[in-house]
């Protein structure tokens, strides 16, 4: 059992305070939650349409290019179009050679 600190002690600590906090600035940093922002297969940013879709200028109903991003369990990301062509030959992530399985898809 520890003894309760005596009130006298806390007063002493207060008077010995060396600095006071006057102002503090919070800094926030952000990054994409993917390891790479460029599709390593076609070398276009994953947020843009892949080379194939750009060449064919595929557009969806709203006139937007419908080229989604796919994330693997290994957290590597590629265009879905690029990756679907590659996995037909070899079901491994082109970057880390792990067995390819989709974690999620979207933009």
């Amino acid at each position, binding site marked *: 059992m520890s003894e309760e600190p005596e009130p006298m002690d806390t007063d002493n600590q207060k008077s010995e305070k060396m600095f006071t906090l006057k102002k503090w600035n919070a800094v926030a940093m952000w990054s994409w939650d993917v390891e790479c922002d460029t599709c*390593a*297969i*076609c*070398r276009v940013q994953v947020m843009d349409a*892949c*080379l*194939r879709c*750009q*060449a064919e200028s595929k557009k969806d109903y709203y006139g937007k290019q419908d080229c989604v991003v796919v994330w693997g369990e290994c957290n590597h990301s590629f265009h879905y179009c*690029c990756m679907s*062509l*590659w996995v037909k*030959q070899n079901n491994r992530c*082109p*970057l880390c*050679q792990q067995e390819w399985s989709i974690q999620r898809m979207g933009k």
Partner: protein
Amino acid sequence: MSTPARRRLMRDFKRLQEDPPTGVSGAPTDNNIMIWNAVIFEEYPNKPPTVRFVSHMFHPNVYADGGICLDILQNRWSPTYDVSAILTSIQSLLSDPNPNSPANSMAAQLYKENRREYEKRVKACVEQSFID
């Protein structure tokens, strides 16, 4: 017509010009020692290009027909490789042969057992390519 393979090649070329690997030039030069050619298919980069030496080579990992025994051009190909990566790999294979997986057993044997004779044969090969 601009196909995805051609567009990708243009990106490879841009990268080769902007950030060339040491000892590799992205422009035509007139002091080539060995001539080689690469056939790139429309399936590129899902299929590797076929790279072959046109000049006669004396190298443990180059076949008599000029074909190169390099894993990344065969079963270890990944669509993330580009022209710079292929050139860097070939460059590394040329300076650092792998005699344990020979495409030219004579070259591999000389490389392992009689380095002086190996170098003599390579030198003769290079000199011949200047004449051709």
